[in-house]
């Protein structure tokens, strides 16, 4: 990791400031806050928009939003951590969501999840150190007829077999290297 002494010094001594490169996003975040602050019930839509800007909810963004809405950071953090949609950590390039809806579960979804855990070396909710893959559990993508299914970003992979998960991961990497993911048969 980078040398601590060269990191920008924040008054609180932690890393809760934005990077220089995020300034354009921060400007947008201010707009988002201005758009929603006076709307009744605007906090959650504001957080959702902020997350779509940054890909996750960095702590400084939460602080800004709290300020903007006249709430304490703990109140906003309470909302953020209540809902599973919000994430405090950056996600990988490929978000792998293994469906554990009932139909997928009874058709071996758990074994598929275990295979991904093993092959990627991460647990549910984690991201690989190279930021390529994040692993999550989904609850039904509405493709129960094709159970068990796995969704990688917006692509649904159906009738996934645990033994072929390694192959599938290789395929995801190569499809992405070839320039984009498409609907997979």
């Amino acid at each position, binding site marked *: 990791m980078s040398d601590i002494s060269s990191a920008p010094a924040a008054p609180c001594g932690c890393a809760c400031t934005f990077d220089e490169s995020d300034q354009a996003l921060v400007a947008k975040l201010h707009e988002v806050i201005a758009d929603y602050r006076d709307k*009744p*019930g*605007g*906090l*959650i*839509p504001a*957080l*959702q928009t902020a997350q779509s800007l940054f890909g996750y909810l960095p702590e400084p963004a939460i602080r800004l939003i709290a300020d903007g809405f006249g709430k304490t950071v703990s109140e906003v953090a*309470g*909302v953020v951590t*209540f*809902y*599973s*949609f*919000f994430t405090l950590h950056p996600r990988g390039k490929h978000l792998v969501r293994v469906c*554990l*809806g*009932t*139909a*997928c*579960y*009874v*058709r071996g979804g758990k074994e598929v999840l275990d295979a991904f855990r093993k092959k990627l070396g991460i647990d549910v909710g984690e991201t690989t150190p190279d930021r390529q893959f994040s692993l999550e559990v*989904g*609850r*039904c*993508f*509405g*493709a*129960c*007829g*094709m*159970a068990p*299914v796995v969704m990688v970003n917006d692509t*649904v*992979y*159906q009738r996934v077999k645990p033994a072929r998960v390694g192959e599938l991961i290789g395929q995801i990497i190569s499809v992405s290297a070839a320039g984009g993911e498409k*609907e*997979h*048969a």
Partner: protein
Amino acid sequence: MKSPTLKKLRDVSELDAWRAKLQAAAGATGADAAPRQILICFGGSCLASGAKEVRDALAAVLKREGLAEQVALVGTGCMGPCVIGPVLMITEDRTFYQGVKPEDAEEIVTEHLKAGRRVERLLVSDPSGQTPAPCRESIEFFKRQTQIVLRNCGWVDPGRIEDTIARDGYAALAKILSGMKPDEVIAEMKASGLRGRGGAGFPTWLKWHLATQTPEGERYVLCNADEGDPGAFMDRSMLESDPFNAIEGMIIGGFAVGAQRGFIYIRAEYPLAIRRIQHAMELCHKYGILGENIMNSGFAFDIEIRLGAGAFVCGEETALIRSIEGERGQPRIRPPYPSQSGLWGKPTVINNAETFANIAAIINYGGEWFNRLGTEKSGGTKVFALAGKVRHTGLVEVPLGTTLREIVYDIGGGVPKDKKLKAIQTGGPAGGCIPAKWADLAVDFDTLTQAGSIMGSGGMIVLDEDDCMVDIAKFYLSFSQDESCGKCTPCREGTTRILEILEKITGGDGTVEDLDRLERLAKLVNRSSLCGLGRAAPNPVLSTLKHFRAEYLAHVVDKRCPSKRCKALLHYEIDAEKCIGCTVCARNCPAECIAGARKTAHVIDAAKCVKCGRCFEVCRFDAVIRT
């Protein structure tokens, strides 16, 4: 077909005239005729199986044959039979093709469209035998359904308001704005016997009526589309396939209770459904069907979309209201009920998306007609997401009172691989398992409750002999425990302790006393939790304990899992008679616990075995016995 107007509809008669024109074109021949149609299912499952590639291939062949103008390719919402996708239908003779691949496009165009001969090999066979069903109406899966909520799903392009209007969309709105009074609308709901489709089955008319009994002022209509049950996709499919219908139901609800604003609360995980609703709302605004002074009737109603952020408890009405208010979605004690004091303290009517999808049909055809469809105590139909160990998984809509057997066998085609039906799970994590011997139960709100389950929002999972009922109970409890909001102690702590006991049992450490403890705790959580999530969370445990106690006993007394699902309870040994000593198992064993020389029978060291099952999978001589 061009729209007659790009301006707002000035009154109801303009809408009626537009509809008449659209319907005439569909039935006309010659120059006025609308193009022939191929409807291609663009539901989630069919898209994943390559429906778009099929559409592209058909478009290319049509273009080459010079038919691109005469034949319209329409991407529709879900048609229902997900497992045989991609599916498509040719509207003129309702020929229904299954498992269509891009390379079939050639034959469909040249044989069917040009020569008028059906492509036999793509037709659906009936479950009993070989007879291919020529058209949609002759397919068992559809024949036994009655589609009200899903009536437009698979028939319309969800992005075109014209398609919906041609199929009587907004005719009910036109009817109420042409002179019906709000209390007449509510009376029609009462006559229909419609009960809340979210699961609890509260009479819709009564909810609406209670809201009208509050002092004049601001009121709200909320549509709950926060479909969170694992294994349920009714609302998602319906909203993706026919977003206009639920919107119409909400507008009528607004009219009946005197509300001018509505919210659709939908899961952020349903991006396609969200986009389609947004688009449908834009079109409605454009034509003056939504917004200020709808079709110059003096009635105003508008809708906002709010995205759920992934909290199952927000399906509970008071939690959903808190979430729209921008807070943590935690439920509160009722009363007051939302009908009296809901969103921002105002009277609020909150109904499930499927409930709203029934409203227009009730107004169009009458409450009595609707009521005749169901049972004595529950009118109408119910949509189920049929999945699990069943041949034809997909969305089905049947009149209330249909038996489980009809749904699973006649529509669903039964359990695949000649396995035995063990149970049917309804109602998701709040429901229970109904044993196979009760398959002749006629499904409605009350019969399912008596059987220890609930109607719920419509998930229906078929379980066969390979499913362990203790494991299923554990699956649902781990969901409920994970989703407990933490506000009340019985649910927060109770579900955790129940899950621990279930883990102990499936881990091989359970005792008979644990079963009593489990039952006592489950009843306690059921009695004392604050909201429906907590009260219903023990249902999967209580229903399996009631109907499958022997299976629990096998786990705790014999330390065996009869369905061979619970890993810790499995035992592997090698049948010395069958083993030829090929060494495959020994070489694949990660624990190196299989010993034996080449061409002699091998032996598993049970003390070292990690029960991974690898030997069982790789043996080609069925010599590994799993018990």
